[in-house]
């Protein structure tokens, strides 16, 4: 009996996580209608941390423990995952869903755990004076709308006066996010703007594309997700809309969004806030230390795809903040509060990206107490159907702060008033 007890206790001790390890929960979605998008991101996120463990012995001598919890892209399950993992030493959450993000903002703030909602979530969370624990660097939806319009302006020869721009969007909070920014930009730039919504799931878009064909907009900006993306690209090709004038947000710009349309997708554009392709030293290391060692989170066949790269980028930004937190506090064993403080002082430079094997992988940016979103820089990528690859065709361009800034101030002020939040950073 005693032997059994000792063995059981020993086994439990071995199974329990070491207290000093760095815990990064991954609220992934590997099942359900959005699994095809969730899997590469989750793989990239996990593989980068596995690389740090295998190659470097973790971060600052502490091993990283990625606790994966399946949300199926469902808000209720996402909240359950948060509740189930937050007491396991969670240092940072990436909710990977705008719906989950909205639910977790008050919870994570109350629990003192930082959240990183990179390119999604509540846009006005950029205002660190109101949202102490939420970070959305390097870019948000309103930045995306601004950078997209900047690109169209360039394509149109420097002026959008008299042009027609249509936003084709998911008929929900995510899809409606850029509308205020685009309405403001329409006033400033003098273009005619209209929005055409698509209901979930978006498998049938004939009405929307017939409308686009009738109204003949000069440019179409697209805010889609899931099957909506593939159908929109296919329908655009079917109605022979000039693909170079059709641009998606970063959640509508992965390989799987364009591959089903074959050659018809050639020239389609998408905004990206990180680089594309596998031509970066870090991927060689991931292949060697993770995939070839049989430690990859998935089959190892997603390296270099847009969403895998996004997962790697998210992990890289988290790891850099963790390193900064360790350095600032003189301890390898950091707390969520230390992690939050480090995220608020994070500066990503070209040298840091190069040192991590990710040269020019994303924009350089700096986070401050007031600004949790960086400079809002995004680049434009274009799909080459014959080579079956995305290519960045622009540098990382900053959004128009004079347009986006006041909108963020107004929205975050309304949130602060609703929730009795006193502004910080004074």
């Amino acid at each position: 009996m005693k032997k059994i007890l000792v063995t059981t206790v020993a086994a439990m001790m071995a199974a329990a996580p070491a207290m000093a390890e760095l815990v990064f929960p991954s609220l992934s979605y590997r099942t359900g209608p959005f699994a095809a998008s969730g899997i590469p991101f989750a793989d990239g996120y996990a593989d980068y941390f596995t690389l740090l463990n295998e190659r470097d012995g973790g971060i600052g001598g502490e091993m990283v423990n990625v606790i994966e919890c399946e949300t199926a892209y469902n808000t209720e399950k996402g909240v359950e995952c948060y509740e189930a993992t937050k007491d396991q030493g969670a240092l940072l959450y990436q909710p990977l869903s705008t719906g989950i993000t909205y639910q977790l903002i008050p919870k994570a703030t109350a629990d003192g755990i930082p959240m990183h909602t990179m390119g999604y979530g509540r846009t006005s969370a950029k205002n660190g004076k109101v949202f102490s624990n939420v970070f959305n660097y390097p870019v948000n939806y309103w930045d995306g709308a601004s950078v997209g319009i900047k690109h169209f302006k360039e394509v149109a020869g420097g002026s959008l006066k008299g042009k027609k721009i249509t936003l084709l969007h998911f008929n929900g909070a995510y899809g409606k996010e850029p509308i205020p920014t685009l309405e403001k930009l329409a006033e400033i730039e003098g273009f005619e703007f209209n929005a055409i919504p698509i209901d979930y799931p978006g498998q049938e878009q004939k009405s929307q594309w017939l409308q686009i064909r009738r109204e003949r907009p000069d440019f179409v900006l697209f805010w889609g997700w899931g099957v909506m993306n593939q159908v929109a690209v296919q329908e655009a090709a079917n109605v022979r809309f000039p693909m170079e004038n059709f641009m998606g947000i970063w959640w509508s710009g992965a390989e799987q969004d364009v591959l089903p349309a074959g050659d018809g997708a050639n020239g389609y554009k998408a905004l990206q806030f990180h680089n594309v392709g596998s031509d970066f030293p870090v991927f060689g290391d991931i292949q060697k230390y993770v995939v070839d060692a049989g430690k990859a989170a998935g089959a190892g066949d997603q390296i270099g795809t847009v969403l895998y790269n996004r997962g790697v980028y998210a992990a890289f930004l988290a790891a850099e903040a963790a390193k900064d937190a360790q350095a600032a506090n003189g301890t390898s064993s950091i707390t969520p509060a230390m992690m939050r403080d480090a995220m608020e002082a994070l500066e990503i430079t070209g040298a840091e990206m190069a040192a991590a094997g990710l040269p020019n992988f994303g924009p350089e940016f700096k986070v401050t107490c007031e600004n949790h979103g960086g400079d809002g820089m995004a680049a434009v990528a274009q799909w080459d159907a014959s080579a079956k690859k995305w290519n960045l065709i622009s540098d990382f361009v900053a959004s128009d702060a004079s347009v986006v800034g006041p909108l963020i101030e107004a929205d975050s002020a309304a949130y602060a008033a609703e929730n009795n939040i006193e502004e910080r950073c004074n």
Partner: protein
Amino acid sequence: MPEQLVFAMEVFLNGLMAGVLYALVALGFVLIYKASGIFNFAQGVMALFAAMTLVGIQNGQIPFAPLINATLGTNAHFFGWNLPSAISLPLTVGVMILLAWAVQRFVFRHLVGQEPIILFMATIGLAYFLEGVADLMWGSEIKKLDFCLTAETCLPQGINLAIDEATYNWFGYGFFIDNLDITAAIVAVLLVGALVAFSQYTKHGRAMRAVADDHQAALSVGISLDFIWVLVWSVAGFVALVAGIMWGAKSGVQFSLSLIALKALPVLMLGGFTSIPGAIVGGLIIGVGEKLFEFAIGPMVGGATENWFAYVLALLFLVFRPQGLFGEKIIERV
């Protein structure tokens, strides 16, 4: 002719085409409900499973590869062949027949005589089980569907230039009609013709109708319920395959395919659960109704009206004909 009227005509034609695609999905529901009284919640997932199986076989994908690799420590994902659709199609039909047999043998055979709600719940379970099996078997990535019966005859996509040119000459505006939709309409007509011919002129078809009319009477004349239900689920599986091919060609084969069932529900409410012509006519009415409403009223109310308007239209019909346009009126004596 006024411009708006010309546009409305284009929308009307596209509504008809969309309606055919909805009807393709609804047909599978009707077949099973008519023969067994089961509302098959899994019909959408069957379309997904069938399309994934077709693409998997075509691309030479090893089924259950992650499971096999994890168990045996191998790293194999493909057999290394690419089969033509003419071979992968009958093989997929074979898999759907096997699935029909398994569903009957392991699920519904044990539920004979149960309340309809129990049978409905069983199909919900079947839907989730089948979705999980499809994921394990073929993976969850989005697959491009290249369906070609010969090297020259592939599923066409894009604008029909003949219609575009003809309507441009008549109205000064070329109509957009998708070649894939035209193909779907032709396939649907052939499919309905084949189903009607099968049920009217073949021994098994007549047996299927006998079971649909009265299980007890059919049993008393020696018809095997087991066999007929396997047959019905197989035919529904084939219809699901056709729907999966048509919808999968538009969006790629992916897990969202199972959601096409949402488009079939208002069609069933309108056309009736027991009528094949009802599914077709219901599909056309829903398709045209939702598209014209979106065209005429959508812009005034912010757009995206199609999903809810289809149900409003179906409910309106239900008020006046609860059994649907072509459904059988159920009279139960106390």
